[in-house]
């Protein structure tokens, strides 16, 4: 188990926990977080190495219990698991929607450390819900903001902004994490232009280690084959943007 070092408010609904201890990981990889007596669920790492961390939206019983944990208390962590983002090319366009920025803040820092040029689009519902804007600017990315209500940046979808930026500039690879319809939109953009895409997907996950089939997506498994998939893989998913499995393994609308 790992001891909580600090619990920070990122936005009114999003928090970050930093832990005492070390987990080395590739940006985009995730850990299984166990809140004893409550639940265990997947979370992508928002900080890796020493004082690694997770960034989460307070939604259900599990994350509510997590939000109530104080520095000094212990949480079970196993992992890291899965396949993260891989730096490919020199000019990178990163698109994060909502808490989708959680692994992308880490990825942007990593990419800029590797001397790549990063343009980042951060999308959120409102100005208050923007995640990792200052972290991303501090890392040295060219940052664009979109909000659903237009309270800051341009009003509208991050996908639209990506389309505008791609019309003017050339990029080698896009990186995305956020709502699945955003990923679908970016995949369509990538297929029209000569730019690749790596996107992180989400499905109901139980074991996290590639055996239980609960996160199955057209024969692949988000926990082990993903969560980050390339445009070549994404194109083959018939269920992308359409269906997911419920907790009993039945296909349901996304």
């Amino acid at each position, binding site marked *: 188990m790992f001891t909580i070092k600090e619990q920070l408010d990122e936005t009114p609904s999003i928090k970050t926990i930093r832990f005492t201890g070390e987990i080395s990981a590739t940006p985009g990889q995730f850990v299984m977080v166990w809140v004893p007596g409550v639940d265990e669920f997947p979370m992508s790492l928002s900080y890796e190495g020493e004082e690694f961390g997770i960034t989460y939206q307070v939604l259900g019983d599990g994350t509510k219990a997590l939000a109530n944990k104080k520095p000094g208390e212990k949480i079970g962590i196993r992992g890291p698991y899965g396949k993260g983002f891989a730096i490919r090319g020199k000019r990178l366009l990163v698109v994060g929607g909502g808490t989708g920025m959680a692994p992308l803040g880490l990825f942007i820092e990593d990419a800029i450390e590797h001397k790549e040029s990063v343009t980042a689009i951060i999308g959120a519902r409102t100005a208050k819900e923007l995640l990792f804007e200052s972290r991303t600017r501090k890392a040295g990315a060219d940052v664009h903001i979109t909000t659903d209500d237009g309270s800051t940046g341009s009003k509208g979808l991050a996908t639209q902004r990506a389309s505008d930026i791609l019309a003017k500039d050339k990029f080698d690879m896009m990186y995305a994490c956020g709502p699945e319809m955003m990923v679908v939109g970016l995949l369509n953009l990538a297929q029209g232009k000569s730019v690749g895409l790596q996107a992180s997907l989400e499905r109901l996950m139980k074991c*996290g280690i590639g*055996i239980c*089939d609960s996160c199955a997506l057209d024969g692949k498994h988000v926990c082990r084959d993903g969560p980050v998939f390339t445009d070549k893989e994404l194109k083959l998913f018939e269920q992308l943007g359409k269906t997911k499995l419920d907790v009993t393994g039945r296909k349901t609308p996304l």
Partner: protein
Amino acid sequence: MTHLAVDICGIHLKNPTILAAGILDETGKSMIEVAKAGAGAIVTKSVGREARSGHPNPSIVELHDGLLNAMGLPNPGIDYFADEIKEAKKGGVPIIGSVFGGTEDEIAALAGQMSGYGVDAVELNLSCPHAKGFGAELGSTPEIVEVVCRKSKKGVSVPLFAKLTPNTSDIAALAKGAERGGADGIVAINTLKGMAIQPQARMPILANRVGGLSGPAIRPIGVRCVYEIFEAVKIPVIGVGGITSGMDALEYIMAGASAVQIGTAVWSEGLEVFSRTSKEMLRFMVENGFESVPDMVGVAHPDRP
């Protein structure tokens, strides 16, 4: 010519490695991937009457030499499963439909329905150690096993396998019960009932508290069980428990298994485990003068030639 093909109760397998129930086998497309990876046959997730969510998380604990799981039989329900079987069949290898139930009549009805979906065999899960009221209770005495098999046999038109629990003092007696009831084959073993406690949290890790232990840690138990069952019954035995290599599979085969199932090794080795296990078995056979798998079945028993 040395070869790996085996026939079990009339089912032809290109090699004797079968995917065990509960691993990457709830959706048809996942089963196709397992077939592509080289499995000789596939057992589906255990399916019941109604859709079931399974136990809350944590449902798995990773150990040095195995896994402790309490998935709790999550499944979409038998009515829904016809489409998954139809899809899985596209993988081109035999599909064995696994069912579990709360009563003898329920499991018999499920076996019949599964058989109607076009599976190549039906496996009765009489041995799940972590779902209360399902599985292990129906597999706990030779008498109940016999009745369950007899009732199930009536409704199925394909071979019927009984998967037995090692959480008993006499697994050979259970196997005899299954044979008397008309089962065409025995599958042994399911997981062993276990618990893991996280001292810092002062509580069992699994939300269900108890779970089933699988993986290399249980292989000697599985091999011993298959050895005992082989001496007790005439019907074929399929060995399962902790197989991660060709040499592991050979232990089971020499103990008396006609084929083997692999589950937990999909976690530790990836899907490549099927093709690698086959390759290693074939190499052993060439080097040791065995032409086919049946030539090796049960050779570890002293009264066998």
